[in-house]
């Protein structure tokens, strides 16, 4: 990892030097730079409002189950975001989550909380190692990232089954509580705290350092980045390490929220995570978007099937609606971008 640049405070320090057109001007520029920071909270609030409207007895318990349901997906989305921003894709995220999930559940079953936390660190290291292997193969074998990570996804899926043949295992209740309980009030699930803390601790230092700039740079224009002195290979490689690390956190989250290890549970998260990335305003072409959008989109995407169940819609038809909504949300985002550039 590159050390954070010492000389300048941050990217924000740059704009402070300029004579901008007052608060409104600065706000507009901020929106231009981070469009999803405005749109995604709005979308999340709207979907929460709809949920409460069709489900008047929405309680703190419902909020907790929403947060628990969204937690693994949010980490899958975050993991994918790290790679997509750098202009790549990782189709092995779900399988890496499964490995982390069964690794945790099989080793923590008879451990106490202290040992479990130590084991969690081991699982995170394993995740980073899986990501590193992904990165090595994608960057140095010249096999296209889609193919390489798809194949590695099969491998990690197999590894998960080798570790644990069928769902089982467990972890001490104190450990499960990190993702499943509440700490301060029943309206603030631990899952949300864990999510915010984990993503912030991993991503904010990256975003503020030169490495963050380099990730965005190689996703946006690889030639220009190379000519600016960016080491393309090393930067791509590190994107996959972050993907593996965040996948492992997601796997731990899966253990916390389900209480067991399930070797096949993770697979679903690869494509759903990718959907959250797209809905969250990250360009699949790379270089654009942030972490906040996809993480919030994970909550929106978790809410949709819940709402459809409350509306008594046939779950099979619900799938159709969910797909339609994903396309609609991304389309609206596209139209907004088009309208903006036309002005």
């Amino acid at each position, binding site marked *: 990892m590159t050390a954070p640049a010492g000389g*300048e405070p941050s990217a924000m320090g740059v704009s402070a*030097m300029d004579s901008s057109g007052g608060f409104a001007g600065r706000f507009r520029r901020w929106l231009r730079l981070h469009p999803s920071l405005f749109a995604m909270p709005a979308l999340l609030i709207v979907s929460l409002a709809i949920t409460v409207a069709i489900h008047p007895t929405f309680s703190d318990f419902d909020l907790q189950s929403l947060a628990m349901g969204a937690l693994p997906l949010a980490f899958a989305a975050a993991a994918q975001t790290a790679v997509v921003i750098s202009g790549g894709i990782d189709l092995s995220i779900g399988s890496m989550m499964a490995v982390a999930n069964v690794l945790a559940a099989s080793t923590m079953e008879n451990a106490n909380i202290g040992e479990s936390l130590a084991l969690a660190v081991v699982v995170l290291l394993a995740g980073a190692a899986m990501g590193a292997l992904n990165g090595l193969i994608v960057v140095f074998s010249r096999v296209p990232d889609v193919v390489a990570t798809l194949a590695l996804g099969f491998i990690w899926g197999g590894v998960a089954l080798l570790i644990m043949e069928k769902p089982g295992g467990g972890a001490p209740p104190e450990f499960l509580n990190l993702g499943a309980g509440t700490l301060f009030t029943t309206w603030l699930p631990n899952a949300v705290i864990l999510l915010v803390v984990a993503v912030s601790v991993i991503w904010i230092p990256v975003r503020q350092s030169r490495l963050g700039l380099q990730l965005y740079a190689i996703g946006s224009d690889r030639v220009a980045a190379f000519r600016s002195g960016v080491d393309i290979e090393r930067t791509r490689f590190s994107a996959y390490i972050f993907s593996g690390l965040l996948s492992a956190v997601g796997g731990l989250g899966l253990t916390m929220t389900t209480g067991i290890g399930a070797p096949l549970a993770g697979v679903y998260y690869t494509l759903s995570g990718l959907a959250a990335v797209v809905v969250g305003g990250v360009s699949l072409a790379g*270089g654009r978007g942030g972490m906040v959008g996809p993480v919030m989109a994970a909550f929106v995407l978790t809410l949709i099937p819940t709402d459809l169940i409350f509306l008594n819609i046939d779950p099979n038809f619900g799938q159709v609606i969910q797909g339609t909504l994903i396309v609609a949300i991304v389309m609206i985002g596209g139209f907004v971008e088009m309208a903006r550039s036309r002005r």
Partner: protein
Amino acid sequence: MSEPVLLLEATDVAKRFDSVIALKAASLRVCPGEVHGLMGSNGAGKSTLVKIITGVLRADGGRILVKGVARTFGSPAEARAAGIVSVYQDPALVPDLTVGQNMRLARVSLKDVRRRLEELGVTSLDFSSLVRDLPYPTLRLIDLARALASEPAVLLLDEITASLPADLSEQIYLMVRRWRERGNAVIFISHRMAEVSALCDRATVLRDGVTVGVTERAHGSEERIVALMLGAETARAVASATSAPATKAKPRDQEPALEVRGLRHSPLLNDVSFKLYPGEVLGVAALEGQGQEELFDCIAGSRRTDEGAILARGQELRLRHPADAIRAGVVLVPANRLLALLQQRSVRENIALPAFGAIRNWGPIGMRAERARVESATARLQIDTRAGSELSRLSGGNQQKVVIARWLASGFNTLLCFDPTRGIDIGTKRQIYALVRKLAAAGSAVLLFTSELPEIALACDRAIVLFGGRVVAEMPVAEADEATLLRAAHGLAPQLQAVS
């Protein structure tokens, strides 16, 4: 030779890409305190040499000495650390980052860049704007300022003034001279001979990957440079091809091949009207951003017009797609060859692409008919297809010929040429203009925009000048000398004589 220690010495550098030899024996010796021109036709190997010197590519042979020490660079970053920095032909700024972030990315200090930009006459740049929101000329200046901020001992400028407005080019000349005064060296690559002879102290000429000569003085040696670039025999052939510009008055009683009436495309195009007759080459002269791009795009069908009519042979066209214009026999040769061609496909496929419709509408493509058309077009244009099948291996000039060849193969009435010689060497340039004249002589109508005003007189029968989205002047080619065009293009009335 009693030279001081050379800042940069490249000797017998060689490079091949598969079967294509880009450089055979390129040599370049650059002293401190000089502006050194690097000249050569397209495909002569200039860009390859620049890329090898700055660590983008690795050489297969030869050696490079920096201040007397043998070096090989694995990346542009390593070259920069050794004081060698290049401003490449296209901007090397990341579009989705802000200007400030781009500077952090390249580890240069914002303060230095800001100071350099001020020296270049840019005082009010907002460093928090996204690069993709900034206009092209500004990006070139930012690129240059960033290169200067790392205080290079050897600065390479590859076609930096191509398609820059004159006032900005002037700023760049000033900066280049200032850089030389400080004992540094500048390697200057340009196709504009006037620029090179005014700016450069010496010039190295490449031909076919070999250094064929070094002129000890660039000023006054233009003829020698051209002769070296072309090679003796080509020079003679080109001279005879272009010596007789046909300036016969064209019959005006026939129907125009293309007529444009009251064309608008807000905000840049306000009310443009003109007629273009068969067998005529009509030149369009304009400074950067006067609506010429919109005009060509509208006629070619890739932009919708707001108002006005476009007629081809008396028929009003309803253009919703470039295919509509192509069907009406109106075809475009764009400045950016990359936009028109499929880089990864073969020359044959590229030429045949728009002709699919003409040869057979559906079902399998008639391979034999296709091959015959393509071969005749390739032969007529003397396209150098040595580079094999993949288009991206052809030089810029040859790629441009492929664009014209494809339209020859598919047939057309009106050819729209938008700055077809941008970034193309003099030899190929003259060949392209000779070709345009030949097409007109065969009865085609040609609308030609060129960013280099002297070229209007070379190829056109008549010229119109665009300013602020309007046609402000029209003149026969005899009156269309550079000074007249330039005054009109700046929106000055043509009848006023120059005060200076």
